[in-house]
């Protein structure tokens, strides 16, 4: 019986190891998260095939990208942002009518962190700011746009709705949902990424369009409008 208890205790310790060691210091975060997320920009110099291997978004510029408040909350309740995962072609099956559908059974679940772990992890991630120059160069000032005009621009004129959901169930599935983007991302990052996504990630799956500053503002303002709902 004692031996059985020892076995059980050992198994529990082994299973619980990631949480127990998730102290939030740089080494721990990189070790625990590095299987799915990259923490340096080396991927930018690798062949495009590296894009097929990603299991989660790069975190090397997390401090230029995320809102800390959102990060802390999300790490404790990690709901899916990308309906088809980080690399959608790996999560596709044939539907009943022969059309491609998302195979949710293959999607990875993000670990849940405690409040303390989420706080220290977010603190570390927010220090990762290699693209301060891109943020400083951004002149976007949040404004507004009518929901109707914003939607028309997003869906019909710019085609963003082909890949991104702008409301639950409305929009494509290959990109991250955007109705939560305003709470998740820094406004300057949103504008900079729309304007020059390749500068952030040369293997981004988002087309680099020649958006004017006004066009970038319209799209960013629409994300603000739908993000406030």
């Amino acid at each position, binding site marked *: 019986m*004692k*031996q059985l208890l*020892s*076995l059980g*205790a*050992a*198994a529990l*310790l*082994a*299973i619980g*190891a*990631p949480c127990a060691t998730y102290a939030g210091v740089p080494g721990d975060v990189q*070790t*625990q998260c*590095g*299987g799915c997320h990259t923490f340096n920009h080396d*991927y930018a110099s*690798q*062949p*495009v*095939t*590296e*894009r*097929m*291997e990603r*299991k989660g978004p790069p975190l090397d510029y997390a401090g230029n990208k995320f809102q800390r408040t959102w990060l802390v909350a999300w790490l404790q309740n990690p709901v899916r942002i990308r309906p*088809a995962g980080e*690399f*959608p*072609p790996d999560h*596709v099956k044939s539907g009943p009518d*022969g*059309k*491609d*559908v*998302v195979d949710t059974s293959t999607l990875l679940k993000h670990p849940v962190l405690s409040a303390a772990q989420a706080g220290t992890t977010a603190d570390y991630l927010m220090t990762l700011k290699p693209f301060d120059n891109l943020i400083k160069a951004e002149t976007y000032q949040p404004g507004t746009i009518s929901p109707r005009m914003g939607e028309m621009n997003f*869906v*019909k*004129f*710019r*085609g963003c*709705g*082909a*890949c991104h959901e702008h409301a639950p169930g*409305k*929009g*494509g*599935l*290959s990109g991250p949902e955007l109705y939560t983007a305003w709470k998740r991302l820094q406004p300057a990052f949103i504008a900079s990424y729309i304007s020059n996504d*390749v500068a952030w990630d040369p*293997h*981004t*799956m988002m*087309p*680099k*369009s*020649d958006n004017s500053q006004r066009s970038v503002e319209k799209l960013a303002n629409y994300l603000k409008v739908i993000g406030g709902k």
Partner: protein
Amino acid sequence: MKRLFLVVSLLAFGFIAQANAADPNAADPNPANHGDHGTVLYRIYCTQCHGVHGKGNGINAAQMSVQPHDHTDTKSMSTRTDAGLFKVVQQGGGSIDKSILMPVWGGNFTDADIHALVGHVRELCCKKK
């Protein structure tokens, strides 16, 4: 003593298993292991809309007002020139009076990339095995 050995072994096994789980797929930089360049680019950038088999029925298609082209449709694709395909990839659907839902990819791809993609589309449509 045996019990201690058992506990230590189990702990070690647990850590090894987790180390492996943390790195499920190390990146393989060898393109040869991912098919030819056009095939790789098509899988990364095109299948979301055009489908993993190029039939125009990708996971985004259900929400699109204009359906993506079926690249396996030999008859339809035979009417397209290589130059026309190059242009629509580089400059988007609007450049040939088609839907703007076909994006402008000229900022993401080199000319060589686009030629490789056109080659892959030709494989899909017209060189079926």
